[in-house]
């Protein structure tokens, strides 16, 4: 009971927060490119924050559900449809068994995410993570991107209920600036800013840079004015963090991302503030970016703000709401329970009659009836006798 890939899309893989603790042995962290969209997707279906998701780029997959479940789609807009009907992003949606979810090409942004309620797809944890390591071919689904015919089982089959489902939606995230010609991305200077001339640093923070077609999970190569170094850009290899801005000898920045190598020998003028990495990775080729220096203290305050935002969001989506209550659904769920109760009570009496009688006997007795039936579970006949 899970999903079957009909068409794989581009670079569709299983990712989570990433694999930590093995960079010292040369393993990339992997994990999602857009952490913000990932967190929100899991939050909308009430998964653990580190549950795996399907990540896809530029053109999304087509897949069929072999069981009912609840999903959420976040990140870029891939014009998703279920059985031909458009589906909203940033909302928990019920999906019927046999439904076909189809993503098109990205209309905005680059990366899309699909979260599945009940703990997502069932893939083994390898070295503390369920992310796919494509280079070493392990983790995720068989260590590779998904292909047509793959059948991915779910952790929980047949999920058909989340309390207050109607609240599990937010407005598509204005954070990214998808419509803007140019976005500002904040950068914490270092660790090798001192390898660059003052003019070079000035260039980096004042000139626009554009994303290119050489952008993937490993890194984003940007085009723009050459950044001047003092004596070339070779350093003794050291560690590369997520979002590090390497400037090789050609003078144009490469932003190191989820599948980056763990160490490298080019000077890094700065590191993108973690909260702004999603903004950058969602820039399709040929779009402008401008860099803005902030302190590490400011970047960490932004992270705390983001964490508070996620907490608020979690509260908001779980809040009861009027549009979450569907009379038809409620009736459908209640009918079999009530019918069963009625059968046990008295073959020839409908539950409504009994409720009426209870009403007549008095609210205190009725309450007593409820309690005794609850406590004893199958003690309905006694309850009836007492009322009668």
């Amino acid at each position: 009971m899970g999903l079957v890939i009909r068409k794989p899309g581009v670079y569709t893989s299983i990712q989570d927060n990433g694999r930590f603790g093995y960079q010292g042995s040369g393993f990339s962290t992997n994990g999602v490119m857009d952490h913000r969209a990932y967190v929100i997707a899991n939050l909308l279906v009430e998964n653990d924050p580190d549950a795996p998701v399907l990540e896809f780029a530029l053109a999304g997959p087509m897949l069929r559900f072999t069981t009912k479940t609840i999903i959420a789609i976040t990140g870029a807009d891939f014009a998703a449809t279920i059985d031909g009907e458009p589906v909203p992003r940033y909302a928990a949606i019920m999906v019927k068994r046999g439904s076909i979810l189809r993503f098109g090409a990205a209309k905005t942004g680059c990366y899309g995410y699909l979260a599945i309620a009940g703990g997502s797809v069932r893939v083994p944890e390898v070295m503390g993570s369920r992310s796919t390591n494509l280079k070493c071919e392990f983790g995720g689904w068989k260590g590779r991107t998904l292909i047509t015919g793959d059948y991915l089982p779910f952790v929980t089959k047949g999920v058909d209920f989340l309390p207050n489902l109607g609240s599990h939606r937010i407005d598509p995230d204005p954070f990214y600036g998808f419509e803007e010609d140019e976005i500002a991305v904040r950068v914490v200077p270092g660790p090798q800013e001192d390898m660059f001339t003052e003019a070079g640093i000035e260039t980096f923070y004042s000139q626009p840079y554009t994303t290119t077609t050489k952008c993937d999970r490993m890194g984003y190569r940007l085009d723009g004015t050459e950044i001047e170094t003092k004596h070339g850009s070779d350093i003794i290899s050291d560690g590369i963090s997520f979002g590090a801005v390497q400037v090789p000898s050609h003078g144009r920045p490469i932003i190191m991302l989820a599948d980056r190598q763990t160490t490298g020998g080019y000077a890094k003028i700065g590191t993108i503030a973690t909260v702004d990495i999603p903004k950058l990775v969602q820039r399709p080729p040929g779009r402008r970016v401008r860099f803005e220096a902030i302190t590490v203290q400011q970047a960490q305050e932004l992270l705390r703000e983001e964490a508070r935002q996620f907490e608020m969001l979690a509260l908001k989506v779980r809040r009861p709401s009027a549009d979450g209550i569907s009379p038809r659904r409620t009736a459908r769920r209640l009918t079999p329970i009530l019918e069963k109760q009625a059968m046990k009570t008295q073959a020839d009496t409908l539950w409504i009659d009994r409720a009426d009688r209870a009403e007549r006997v008095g609210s205190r007795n009725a309450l007593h009836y409820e309690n005794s039936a609850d406590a004893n579970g199958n003690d309905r006949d006694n309850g009836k006798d007492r009322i009668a």
Partner: protein
Amino acid sequence: MAGFSITIAGDSALNLEFAHAISPETSAKIRLAAENLTADPIEGITELVPTFCSLMVYYNPLTITFDELSARLRGKLRDVGEADLSVRKIVQIPVCYGGEYGPDLANVARHAGLTEREVVDVHTAHDYLIDMLGFLPGFAYLGGLDPRLHTPRLATPRTRIEPGSVGIGGEQTGIYPLASPGGWQIIGRTPLRPYDPDREEPILYAAGEYLRFVPITPDEYAAIEQQLAANTYEYQIFVEDE
């Protein structure tokens, strides 16, 4: 412990920089700092990445801020003491040199003006310090290749080098942990898998440890391969105190 400086690598990592040149002393200091932080962790540190001259410390800024962590690290690592270089952990790597496993041994010998036998003797004459791991899982950057064996890379890189291949590229020597393209002169191959995702410790060695290459015959190579397959091979790992 001699001083280090702290550089900022974004909002979730920092570098402890111990020196600006590669040396066994620097390597030992980095290892000592890493051991200290592993044995008695500071809450919020998520991962340590030792490199040639620095130790990258990844941390969760929601648990500990840059300012708090820097202050704690400065205090904690002030009195760790001098690195003890006399204790070495050595991982023995059996290597079948030349022939099918080392197609470029003759190249290296010609370039060095030595016989193939002599190249093997020089290559196995001393242990190699692992300065750091990087590039590929289990790819060890080794210090101290004898200058006589320095050999330029192949003019045309091979599209596939078998895992376990031992090569020389310029002034460096090392083992390819995974099948990968590469331009190093391949002088031999080990039946051991430096990287094995199914082993309890996927990577056979760590930065700060030493590799000891030991020549074996093709028959011994086959025997070790069988033992590995049957899970009966005993890895030769020693601690030597000089």
